[in-house]
């Protein structure tokens, strides 16, 4: 069971709970490097690192926000929800027939993921073809004004 703690800068801290063993009223939580124990007593929740010294815990639910001094985390149990995906490869291939209208880079340029490489006019739309990865433009195989079929390799970006 993996927990994700996502802070205000969208950085993750991952905590892996490998196993839970329950022995009577005490539950044993086996993490990658440490083991923790927890139990209920008189309607409250207590935890311990050695089953000797016990301290009170707050009672939390998944999906809540927890704070560690100055850092605020959103806590996700079992999965990190999908937000804005980034998909895409270094090879830019035409998806449909079209005409190259404008090029913004040349071979050897460094590009960032999401940067517009060229404009392809197709389906009566000016489609911005964007780099799927950050890297260097290995090759630019088309020119402005060129009419292309579907499935043509327009550029290659090497990461």
């Amino acid at each position, binding site marked *: 069971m993996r927990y994700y703690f996502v802070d205000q800068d969208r950085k993750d801290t991952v905590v892996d709970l490998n196993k839970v063993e329950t022995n009577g009223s005490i539950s044993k939580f086996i993490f990658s490097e440490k083991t923790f124990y927890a139990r209920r007593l008189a309607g409250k929740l207590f935890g311990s690192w050695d089953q000797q010294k016990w301290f009170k815990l707050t009672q939390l639910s998944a999906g809540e926000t927890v*704070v560690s001094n100055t850092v*605020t985390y959103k806590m996700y149990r079992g999965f990190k929800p999908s937000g804005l995906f980034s998909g895409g490869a270094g090879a830019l291939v035409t998806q449909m027939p079209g005409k190259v209208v404008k090029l913004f880079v040349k071979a050897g340029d460094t590009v960032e993921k999401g940067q517009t490489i060229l404009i392809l006019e197709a389906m009566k739309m000016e489609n911005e073809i964007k780099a799927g990865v950050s890297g260097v433009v290995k090759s630019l195989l088309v020119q402005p004004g060129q009419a292309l079929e579907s499935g043509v390799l327009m550029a290659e970006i090497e990461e």
Partner: protein
Amino acid sequence: MLGKRVLIANRGEIAIRIAKALNELGLVSVGVWTDNEPEAAHLEYCQEWVHLSGNTNRDTYLNVPKILELIKKYKIDAVHPGYGFLSENGEFAKTLKAQGVIFIGPNPEAIAAMGDKAISKQWAQKAGVPVVPGSTGEVPTVEEAIKLCQTIGYPVLLKAVAGGGGKGMRPCYSDADVKTNFEAVQREALSSFGNAGLLVEKYVQNPHHIEVQILADKKGNVYHLFERECSIQRRHQKIIEEAPSPFIGEDTKLRKEICETAVKLAKAVGYDSAGTVEFIMGDDRKFYFLEMNTRIQVEHPITEEITGIDLLANMVKSAFNQPLDFKTQDDIKLHGHAIECRICAEDPVTMLPAPGKIAGFETTFPQGIRFDHCLYPKFTITPDFDPMVGKLIARGYDRAVAIRKVRAALDGLLLDGLKTNIPLLKVILDEESFKKGEYTTHYIAGVKPQERVAITEKPESLLVRVASVEMGQV
């Protein structure tokens, strides 16, 4: 007085505190909830719950016509304004008086007298209360400024008349300094506040903020309940308060002097109900009147703890012209020491407000702790309201014991889900100069305790959170 209906025109922890006093005196506590706080925790202590429509403070707690409507509709006999909101609104007090509704606070004339900084200073001077020496108004030229400075004595502060928040002021230690800085401060004042007017004031060095609690009845009897020291402040807001003042310490003569001075002023303006006279005291142990707060204050609990006197109950009794719980000034005795830490929803390093939702709330306190708050698990603190969510007060046999107890209480206060200043409070309470009681209002700026706050807890604290969630899954 029994059975009289009192409207609490406030919310949060002070509303709870007021309700406690009203309930114990046999009055009917009428609490208010607004549209932006339908789950108002303070209602738990109120006997009657009344809806005040509106989504902002301006529309609700600060809306006099709406409150007057409520008073009429629910046949209210008296109003307790708490602190903030309408507590120092002289017009409101006057209106209530005219309508025959009791305002649980001082009379309108006293509010007016002490409400304006300039007017209150005049009253103080008339009453023979020392005020910060300085110009009575603007000082137009360098020459006049220097003449004044020579009378007052250096060091002095050149201050913008329209200034505030610590801006537009420069200390000067000699005539030459005044000559150098006069025009500079004028320019700063003009650009920051649009007004180039300057005044001159004595510069109190290593200042302490010391205030005296006043309680008076309607028969002209004015009492003091000793002093408090509130020098630990940031952005001119108090974070930690103590009673009595560690700076005054064992100097009973000084204590008597400052407390009786406060009483003198209160008597001079015909004060009744509870109030606080604020002084500034330099390391030369000379004190000067700053202003008077004509209301019950946030930090009143520490005075209650060292005197054993219920300020709220007596405030209410005074308003209803009932005899107070004690008879003479000598009945009020000082026992031990008390410290209050204000728990605020804010970043412990930047000290900026950080609203949020409480994910978990647990307390494990030592003996001698009082926690005045309006918290509950899943409570959401919104930017609408003050970031202070509670006051942690410890009473001890002496100052060291009080510090020990409040420090342990901070360890036992678990508030998860939002940033709080608890880590900062811990740093301050552990810090040497605070423990010795050697601090002034420059403490935060000088010692910079916020820089000693760890950015995060140890990584193990995340494992503990995981275990807590898992235990809840079953």
